[in-house]
């Protein structure tokens, strides 16, 4: 499998996915 960080689009999409994962983690930590 190709490393997504080798392309700019792969990097940006990985960053957006990570943002969503961390956002829901933060929401669960604040008890929302």
């Amino acid at each position, binding site marked *: 499998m190709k490393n997504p*960080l080798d392309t700019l689009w792969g*990097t*940006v999409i990985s*960053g*957006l996915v*990570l943002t969503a994962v961390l*956002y829901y983690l933060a929401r669960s930590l*604040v008890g929302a």
Partner: protein
Amino acid sequence: MSADFIQMGLGRWLHIMAGVMWIGLLYYFNFVQVDALKAAAADSPPTGGGITKHVAPRALFYFRWAALVTVLAGLMIMGSRAGQVLTFKPPYVGIGIGAWLGILMFINVWGVIWPNQKKILGIVPASDDEKARARRTAFLASRTNTMLSIPMLFFMSTSYTFHRPLFGL
């Protein structure tokens, strides 16, 4: 001039200015310079020498020192609340995640990107094999920081008192 004004007012200004320089140069490397050097290497004869010799070292100088100032100013803003922020105690969950992402990126700059860039730029001696490995490592570390900057900026910009409720944080 009160201590609060220096810590929260001037500290925040410095944090944002240094952060713009750090992340701006990170985006310059990733969105502009990597592809520009690839295109320059494909020219006949190659035309990227000027970028490598004159632009990259200057950009890296401001990049790594701006990273340090950003983190120090961030710690200054946190002040006595650093313990609560860095252990994700409400209402500092969002800013805690942003702060840790920034700290990871800072470690990446000084611990991975800069030592490898020194080999690539010939500041420290390295064989061609070592330079090729350093180029790949520095590239992936820089791309990792670009990826981490997206959630880092999300949590930094949504953790202000007014914005936090908008995102349910």
